[in-house]
């Protein structure tokens, strides 16, 4: 059994990345783990880097 998916929050604008849904419009398929999201990916709402996201319990 795989681990449950997690969500990550952009600390700048509040955008939420959910591993369960991924970000298909950016080529990141559903189920993509945060660690596997490319470092070049930027927040779609504010443009900050992946490094400015933190794990959250929602």
């Amino acid at each position, binding site marked *: 059994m795989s681990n449950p998916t997690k969500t990550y*929050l*952009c*600390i*700048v*604008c*509040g*955008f939420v990345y959910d591993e369960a849904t991924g970000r*298909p*419009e*950016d080529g990141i398929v559903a189920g993509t783990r945060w660690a596997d999201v490319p470092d070049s990916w930027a927040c*779609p*709402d*504010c*443009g*900050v880097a992946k490094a400015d996201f*933190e794990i959250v319990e*929602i």
Partner: protein
Amino acid sequence: MQPLIIIGAGLAGWTTVREFRKLDAATPVMLITADSGDFYAKPSLSNAFAQGRSPAQLVSTPAAKLVETQNVTLRAHTRVRAIDPVRRVVTTSHGKFAYRDLVLATGAQAMRVPLAGDAAGSVLSVNSLQDFSAFHARVVGTDSSQNHSKHIVILGAGLIGCEFANDLAGAGYRVSVVDPAERPLAALLPAQAGEQLQGALAELGVTWHFGCTVRAVDQNPDKSDPALRVSLSNEVQVLTDTVLSAIGLRADTALAQTTGLACERGIVVDTALQTSDPHIYALGDGAQYASAGGRTLPFVMPIMSAARALAATLAGQRTELVFPLMPVTIKTPALPIVVAAPAPGLAGQWTSNDPGLWQFMGAENRQHGFVLTGQHTARRGEQARLVQV
């Protein structure tokens, strides 16, 4: 070495600090703010209920951590009384500070319309985490079992009004929205897109009152729950627990004006974010950007672009700000929307061949904007590539 002083600890102020520190680790930086300096994502204020997050949980980076990581001197809970642009000195409620360069990131204030009635003073607006705490306390109250009977009237069906309506209705509150227009987001969206949102939020339980305004807010004359009675201009009366005003923001130019800086709708800045004083800069909701044709620009994206350009200028490399295409995500989960609005006054019209996509077409069949709704929001990248900024 005199410090770089930044006034305001919102997204504009802190992002300028962060971007400046990427380029210059040595120059002292002081940040002066009337609040605590804690950093929070302001867009989260209008989806906190659905996510079950309390005001305290919305602080994403405490001020103390930013002070340490960004090597900045923080003057929290400090009011700026005056700026002397000749001597380059800021006078505050906690002393005087000299600056090398000064950045005004003082933001905007919630607009309010005068209302009649003996409870007009109870109307709230939310433009900061502090405001949100007050609103949250009023709405949640002490007895959480009562939530689902609570009723909230929202003034304004713009972006913030619609986001709050969705958030509160989704969390089980009863919500009514009042707006003089004929549909939500009338200034931003083509009619059909606005009607889609109207329908989606109505399905969620939102009651709309269009084509009217709120005239008065009184105590409920029956002296019973709910506490307030809202009287609309069309003679309709609505009993409610809370009234939230979300009719828009106006640039806060008070400090800039008393300093003698050029101000119109906002603090006037050139393409390098310089005000009419060569050592004072401005960005964020308070600035009127030459790079945007003399407009003020709300939302997150313009602040991020402006802060990057300003940081480079302050680090010694004068940088002209050029705004990219900045689509706005409207956080209405009942009908997600992405809008890239054409520049105001641009000739053209909205066209649509698809129920979730509108394109703003101008002369020579050039596309200047788009609106995407529902699952079509995934086509944001594709549409952004078609737009000519």
